[in-house]
């Protein structure tokens, strides 16, 4: 086999098998963490810090209407989960000390 074909072959293996395997293992481990949190505290926060900021930004831009109500409810769920649960699923910089 030519050198260029070997390079393409190895790169393809890494880009496909490597990425797929990593994605599957990481995803399964993350979902296991969610299950542990559910068993231990019955709940966890559904949004990451960046995703929560997106909701807040969206509400700032669209404060009225049914869609805003739906967003507010989500934000409220997030806030309650953050307040009620000692352990969090996503890394929150400001409460890092509390988590430890």
């Amino acid at each position: 086999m030519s050198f260029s074909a070997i390079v393409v072959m190895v790169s393809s293996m890494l880009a496909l098998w490597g990425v797929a395997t990593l994605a599957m293992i990481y995803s399964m481990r993350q979902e296991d963490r969610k299950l542990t949190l559910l068993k231990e505290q019955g709940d966890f926060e559904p949004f990451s810090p960046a995703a929560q900021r997106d909701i807040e930004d969206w509400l700032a831009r669209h404060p009225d209407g049914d869609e805003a109500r739906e967003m507010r409810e989500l934000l409220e769920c997030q806030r309650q989960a953050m307040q009620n649960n000692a352990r969090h699923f996503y890394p929150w910089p400001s409460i890092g000390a509390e988590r430890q």
Partner: protein
Amino acid sequence: MTITNTATNTSTTISREQWGSRFGYLMAIIGAMVGAGNIWRMPYVTGENGGGAFLIAYFVLLYLIAVPGLMGETALGRYTRQGLIGTFRKVYGNNRMVGLGLVILVFNIVLMSYYSSVVGWSIYYAYHALIGTFTQTGFDTAALWQSFSHNKVLNIGMHTIAMLMVTGILLLGIKGGIERMAKWMMPILTIALIAIAIRGLTLPGAMAGLEFSFSPNWEYLARGQTWLAALGQALFSTGLGWGIALTYGSYLGRNDDIPLGGGLFTAVGNTSFGLLAVFAVFPIVFAFGISPTSGPELAFVALASAFGSMTGGYVWALLFFAGFFFANLTTALAITEVGVTTCKEERNIPRSRAVLMICGLIWLLGIPSAINADILGYLDFVLGNWGLPLATFIIMITIGWKFDANRLRILSLNRGSDLYIPSAWEATVRYQIPLIMLGIMAYFLYSNLGEAPLKTLSGLFVLMLMIPLCMGVMKRRLEGQDSQHVAGGRLS
């Protein structure tokens, strides 16, 4: 593990079955996408379009289009927790636009009507592998394929067996049927392809197959045909926009991850099977001096013949055809499930009745394709060239513009996600994918009009007729419901 957290649900939550485990969902969705095309098309298309150059074009399009598109489709299904028509009703309101969902449903049923024949072929060959037909001395695989292709009764029989299998599994439900099967079949398919690849690579002359597949002809990157082939493979192989990811996503829990599992793993994992098929198929093809080709002849004539000539051919043939059958069956389950979920919800009937109705309809519609390969070819031509791109176009426009990609990303896509998706994703769903779909349909029209004008025009006519027809059906159904409500109100 599937997370159910009703305390944080803000949308209407109905009692709905869910995937039993994360692994189960991942295997089911990958099984849905990995089908015949991964095994008998991907190796050939790669080699024919510049090898490494094609793979580069393919990776670019996979990550730029298929991954974001699948994320959007799964996120919409998880948000609405409805099948195709229920999702369109939730997005568009109760009006004639719901007919667009019906259009996609019809495409799925028609697709399954002839894909069932392909499943039937793979059952027939898996049976012959099991009884050791291919390892008989001097056995002529081309003659077997010819006689099978021309035996109408046998083809109807295999189509019937395929649909009976699909019916039986779907009757067991999402978790007990589809998930349970996929959890076994996909790992077996993986092991089978790896084993065949290892065996194939030890054959003299096998490296020429890898050279054909991976040797990069960089000038191909400048050719439009390479990018079009890569686009076709990336879109059709991942089943983007056919309602499958939407339907499977509707059975996810509210806080299950979508971007990593439903998007990245689904698209990349699906292609990983294509790469595995390159390793499993082409070393054997080249070692036995078989002309590289794609389609049924590759699997059912060339490879069956090669397995017969190999040491331990019985095992390799059985592994290959059993794996091929599993790949086709898991795809068939997914395509049929789109109809089953929708039928169950729309008619408000038990799942078992919906399974029997949809599978019965598909069986009936599939008989012409089982009898006549030209009908199968015509349906594949129309659906492949315009029907499925149109379905993808409709779903992406619905996500990007009607529902609003920004809202879907915030509400559903990034909820419980293992991977944060930034706002750049929205442009892909709003502009990139719909424009590419329009481009594909226009190109196929341009390239086929001269060669097969009758097929092209008749197919397009039927497709164009489908949209107003389905919208009309939904409008009449809505009017019927309204009059029932009025009558019911008067009576009460």
